[in-house]
Structures are given as C-alpha cells and as structure tokens.
C-alpha cells in the first residue's frame, strides 16, 4: 500500500524530474520501492540515465537493477526493442541468472509468442518449482490468450500451495465473475474478506455477487454487506447506496404478501435513498430527476 505522504513525495519528485530538476535516480528508486506502475516515466528517465555513460557508471552495481526496471517498463509501454537491448546487456553480465531468464520469458510474452514463453517458464520452474512469479506469469499467459478456463486451472494450482496470497484470490474472483460463475466468485470474495476484513471494496464486490445470484437468503445477505460497505466508507460509496435500494426492493417483491418486513431495514432503505438524493443534488443536479424516477420505480421515495 502507498501511503499519502509517500504519494505526495513521489509526485513531487516526478514533477521535479519532469521539469528537468534532476533527481531521476531517486525518483526511480522510489517507484521501485513503492511498486507503483508509472512505466512511461520510468522508461523516459531510466533511459536518460542509461544512455549517459557518466551517470550510468556513477551508479556502480546498481545499474543492473536499473536495467531490469527499465526493461520491465519498456515492455509495459511496448517498446520491445528497448527491452530487448536492456535484457541483452543483462544476459551478457549474468548469463546463468534465473532473474534474467524470467525477463526473457516476459519479453517473449510481450511479443506474443505464447508457446515459447510457456516453454521458457516451464524450464525455469523445473529449477525452482516454488517461484510465485513464474506461476503467476503462466496465469497471465493463459489470460492473455483468452483462455480463461486455463487461467483458472493454473490459478487453482497456484493457490493450492500459496493459499494466503490474496492478490491471486482476487484475480481468480474477477475471472469467475467474468465467466458468470458467481458461486465460485462468492467463495473467493469470502476469502478476500477474511484476509482483509476492513477493505470495503471486497465487501462491495461480495455483495454484488450475492445480489446477482439472487434468492431471498442471498439478497438479504447482500444487503448486509452493502450496509457494511456503507459503514466502512462512511456512506460515500454510491454503488453501495444503490445496492441497498435494489436489494430492498427485490426482497420486498419476493416477500410480497408474506410476513411484514421488520421496520428497521425499511429505515435503511429510505435513508439510502435520501443519501443518494442529497449526493446527486450536490454533485449532479441535472440528473436528479432521473434518480427520483428510478427510486420511484423501486418504490422507495
């Protein structure tokens, strides 16, 4: 996670470097440390250092990590020839390195030669079967080819060993949602909520999945998770507010004619509607009529 002070520092440095104020190396170090993705800037400033023999030699052994960083950034920007040059330099320096081998695999991926990349990763995995990055690259290959079942298979294999990796769970959840396999997605989101119970986005996504699954139980649960999202975000998440309204009206339809719903949840739905109206009044007054007609159709306002 990038904290606020770190981000302001990063932006300050970026501004300074962009305007020719120097400090490019510090900027690149900070980018690497915070693991943020600003590939275009990294490529530009990194190359300016690498192309200047004096500054390059001033870095000493750090220059190799810079080559790696620039190569990755170049592949992200699709400057494949730059990446190729960087990797060639690294290859010459570290002929046996697995880290360089990984970069070569990613380069093959960037070129779109999937089979070769796959072969490169497999041979690397033979030496070190527990390298999480290599496993993830394989998932990425499958996903890039549009082979979602394959990606799911790889991810499941990966998660069997690295089951505490929540980023992988998140990826899996998103793939399941895109394939409309909501039950499986719900499981993944539960796992995410377990690992980070205070991230409202997971609560929201879980609620979305439950709402999509439908059924009275799921709708009521979804409403609870929308409520927790509201609580965690301080009521600032518009999607959660809409979710409350939709869940309430859907449950009302399902339970029509049956027992009277308890008063409290009705309160919540009216409050959500009111919060939405207030929000729209402040931010987009011209859309207010659309909102109120929508709420009316849900029998809320």
């Amino acid at each position: 996670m990038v904290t606020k002070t770190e981000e302001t520092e990063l932006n300050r440095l970026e501004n300074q470097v962009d305007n020719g104020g120097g400090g490019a190396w510090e900027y690149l170090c900070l980018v690497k440390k915070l693991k943020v993705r600003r590939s275009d800037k990294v490529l530009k400033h990194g190359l300016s250092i690498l192309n200047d023999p004096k500054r390059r030699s001033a870095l000493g052994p750090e220059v190799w990590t810079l080559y790696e960083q620039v190569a990755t950034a170049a592949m992200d920007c699709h400057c494949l020839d730059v990446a190729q040059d960087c990797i060639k330099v690294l290859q010459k320096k570290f002929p046996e390195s697995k880290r360089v081998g990984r970069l070569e695999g990613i380069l093959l991926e960037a070129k779109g030669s999937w089979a070769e990349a796959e072969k490169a990763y497999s041979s690397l995995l033979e030496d070190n079967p527990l390298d999480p990055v290599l496993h993830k690259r394989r998932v990425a290959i499958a996903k890039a080819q549009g082979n979602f079942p394959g990606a799911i298979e790889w991810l499941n294999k990966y998660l069997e060993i690295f089951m505490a990796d929540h980023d992988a769970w998140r990826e899996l959840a998103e793939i399941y949602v895109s394939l409309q396999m909501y039950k499986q997605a719900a499981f993944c989101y539960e796992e995410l909520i377990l690992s980070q119970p205070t991230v409202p986005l997971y609560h929201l996504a879980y609620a979305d999945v439950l709402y999509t699954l439908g059924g009275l139980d799921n709708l009521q649960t979804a409403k609870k998770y929308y409520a927790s999202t509201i609580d965690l975000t301080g009521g600032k998440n518009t999607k959660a507010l809409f979710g409350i309204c939709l869940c309430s009206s859907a449950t009302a339809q399902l339970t029509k004619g049956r027992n009277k719903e308890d008063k409290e949840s009705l309160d919540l739905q009216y409050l959500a509607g009111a919060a939405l109206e207030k929000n729209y009044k402040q931010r987009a007054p011209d859309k207010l009529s659309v909102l109120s007609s929508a709420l009316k159709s849900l029998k809320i306002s």
Partner: protein
Amino acid sequence: MAEDLVLDTAIRDWVLIPLSVVMVLIGILRYFVSKLMRSSQIPDPKIVKEGQVIVRARNLRAGANFIPSKSFRARRVYFSNEENGLLHVPKGQAQNAQAQMFSDPNMAMDMMKKNLSMIIPQTLTFAWVNFFFSGFVAAKIPFPLTQRFRSMLQNGIDLSTVDVSYVSSRSWYFLNLFGLRGLFSLILGEENATDDTQRMMQMGGFGFDPSKSLGAEKDSLDIVQHEWALPKFEQRAETVLKNLVS
C-alpha cells in the same frame, strides 16, 4: 590512585592499532567467505504450504465474524476435519524437529557452514590475542568510570588498584568484536554487516516445528465461536447515513 600510569607509545603502535585493524580485516574476510559458502536453498514445497495454511487459518480465525456462518462452517471443516483437513496432522507422521534435522543433510551442512564462518575465526583471534597481548593495559579512556565497569574493561588484569579507565588488551578485543558493527555496515552495506550478537540469538531459536503449530492452530480454530458481525453493520450503516442526510 595518585599517579597516572604512563603507557608506552609502542603499545599504541603495536597493540591497539594492529588489534583493531586485524578485527576489521577478519570481519571483512568472514563476510566474503560466508558469501562464497552461502548456498541458495530450494524451499521444501511442504513447508511452504504449511506456512501458507497457517496464515490462511489464522485469517479465518481473525475474520470469522465477517463471513456468513454457513461459509465459516464449510471452511472450518475444510481445515480441521479428522480425515483430510489441512490442519490435521496424522499421528506418527509428526516428525520431531531433531530427527528431521539429522535426516536432512543439507540442514546440518548449513549449520556447520554458519558455525565455521563464526566460531573458527573467533577462537583463532581470541587465542592470538590471549597469547600475544595478555595481561597488560592497552589504552586509557579519557573519562572516569565506576568500579562496575572493571570486569568489562579490565578483563585479564586482576588488580583492583588500577583505575577503571584503563582498558586491558583482551577487553579491547571484546569491545572491537561487538562494537564494529557500525563500521561493517558502512563498509559492506546496510544489511551485510556481520552481526555476531544477532547470530548468537538465532542459534538459540533453532528447531521450529511446523506440525506443532498446525496442531495449535487447529485447536484454536475448533473453539472459535462464530457470531456473524454483519447484522450489526446494518444498524451502524443506518447511523452513518442518518448523520450524512441530516
């Protein structure tokens, strides 16, 4: 003591400075030797997996109240059932750490390498210092100290009348041994400093047994009372919205 001891300048030139230089050089040499002998370990998949299982089970225990009870129960069974639960360690299969250490030659080898790079140079230098520089005063620190420092600064001299601010040569060796870390981190880079004191602590903490922690995690998971926290959230969301709307 009424009169100060006068230290020969030859002591400075031939004891104090050489001792420090030798200690620094040995530290650097040891760093490179241990770097040469360091083997890249390939972690055992089973151990990695067990670590991950423990993390996930701990997450489940901590966040249990955030998921519906049906989901929680399903997960608990998955982790702790008696047949093939992830946390269930069949009896007899639980190796004890000592046996595992001996069955795995790599582990013993690593231990030996660590010891080689640590103990051998230390014994050698200590023997060297003891042999050549034993029993005389090598330096004087420029401020007075209390009697309690005597054992620290005058190791090897059994005279209670000598002022405590005089440092014996053997104590100078110990001061160097433990006090040069800052210098090493300057010379060899931040993380590379050979830290004897820390390594000695590591030696004590050897022998971690994953199966034991799996069992402990299973026990604590078994007694978790699931109480779904989400119904409470509806009320809390209500108050949040009330504050927002009004």
